[in-house]
């Protein structure tokens, strides 16, 4: 009798394990499918929203879209359009020129600081969408709505004034030897994300901090996909641009750009 009961418990637990495994596999498959569908949906959206719309009247030489001269000129045109749009504001903006490996801080259209990009990675969505559509999308600047970073935007120090001269102590010069690891992600209203990572140059501590920052972002992303799964929605894919630059320059970019800043991309 006891042996029978034991067998029944073992069978029950085996069934539970099998069911859990099936659920986990289905869940994972659903997660993967939703994740993989997202970029394709984004590409379809970009192609539809920014793609070339044939004029109802008049002829247009359609084959020109495949011409390298046309593509280059169109990309340049988009970049200038975006920079001119950013120049209308008096605040600081960022122009990223990927072929030149440079990022330029601009104020009112005036380049004020040039930064050398050590390496960059760009989402495949940009390469796999319709060329004309991507150029059109990049012809307007991206508007930052939120950012994640490892440093403070404004390193404000709190100080209570002394009650009288006996309490007064002169300020000590700031400690500039402190090491700060700079990694930033800018989220935009348009869905594109600009990652600015500090180049580690073999520094293991900097590399570790970058990994932790990246892991946090991956957790946020996975959580977002899970949330979409629960709501039976396809998650929105966020095309990315990842720039690896020295910490000093990354800090300058992050602190110079306003909370709701803008940036333009030339690829």
């Amino acid at each position, binding site marked *: 009798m006891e042996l029978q009961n034991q067998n029944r418990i073992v069978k029950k637990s085996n069934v539970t394990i099998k069911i859990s495994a099936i659920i986990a596999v289905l869940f994972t498959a659903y*997660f993967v499918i939703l994740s993989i569908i997202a970029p394709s949906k984004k590409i379809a959206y970009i192609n539809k929203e920014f793609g070339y719309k044939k004029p109802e009247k008049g002829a247009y030489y359609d*084959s020109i879209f495949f011409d390298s001269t046309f593509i280059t000129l169109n990309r340049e045109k988009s970049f200038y359009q975006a920079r001119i749009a950013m120049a209308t504001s008096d605040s600081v903006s960022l122009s990223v020129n990927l072929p030149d490996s440079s990022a330029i801080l601009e104020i009112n*259209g005036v380049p004020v600081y040039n930064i050398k990009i050590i390496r960059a990675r760009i989402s495949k969505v940009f390469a*796999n969408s319709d060329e004309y559509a991507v150029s059109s999308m990049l012809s307007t600047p991206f508007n930052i709505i939120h950012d994640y970073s490892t440093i403070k935007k404004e390193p*404000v120090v709190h100080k209570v004034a002394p009650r009288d001269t006996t309490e007064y102590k002169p300020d000590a010069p700031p400690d500039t030897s402190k090491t700060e690891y700079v990694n930033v992600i800018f989220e935009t209203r348009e869905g594109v994300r600009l990652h600015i990572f500090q180049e580690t140059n073999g520094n293991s501590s900097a590399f570790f901090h970058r990994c932790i920052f990246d892991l946090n972002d991956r957790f946020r992303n996975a959580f977002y996909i899970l949330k979409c799964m629960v709501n039976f929605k396809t998650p929105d894919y966020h095309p990315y641009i990842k720039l690896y630059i020295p910490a000093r320059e990354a800090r300058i970019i992050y602190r110079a750009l306003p909370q709701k800043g803008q940036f333009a991309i030339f690829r």
Partner: protein
Amino acid sequence: MSDDISNKNQKENKGRSFAESELVQLITGFVKAIISNKIVRRTFLNVFKGIAIIISIAAFFGFYLYLTPFLQDAGSKTDYKPVTYRINTNNREYKRQISALKSEVSLLERKYRSFTPGQSFLVINTTGNRFYLYRNKKIIREGFCSSGSYTRLVTPEGSREWVFKTPKGKFWIQEKIVKPLWVKPDWAFIEEGLPVPPPGDESRYERGVLGDYAMSLGNGYLIHGTIYKRLLGMPVTHGCIRLNDEDLEIIFNTLSIGSKVYIF
């Protein structure tokens, strides 16, 4: 001679096989000891289970956090193939469209370049605490400066507060002053624990602390000299921009009223 060598080889092989069999025996004995000993067996099983759990968790997170985004990127391919070859360039319509696009790009480029002033202007980097003086769109001088310290000063009662930061954006020189006189604001007294004198009081006026020249950017922000030269290159000011005497004189003589100052 050859017999000697073969004998030696045989001996070596025998020695090796003997060592190998000893090793096998040792391992078998060890495994048998683990199996026979209940406590050791349980400990080994628990360690194995622990390692398996850790590996599963790592695989789980690795899959969700690394493999899926990788697949996402790999899967973002469509049928669209960017073709970058030259087409019939003698086609009249092609020529017309390319030339229209070229003139559009050069027009945009001219418009963009027109934003940079041809006259002298000053650029201040508040994060690096450096300045760059431009003339004819070229840097003619650069060096250290001091900008806002980002200190939030609060009165002991908490009734008033100031944040000492340099504003960012586009400004212009509104006034040029030789031998400037510092009219001390309230915070200059509060910061040192001194009683705040009434406006216009003699104790509010101090000469010599702002250097030989000052240029006003409006709202009380100045570009001026300093007596704390060792702090140049550090964020220590109350929002103004401090320069050393030599740089200040050159900038003062280069910029005129209306010259642009870009602060980032």
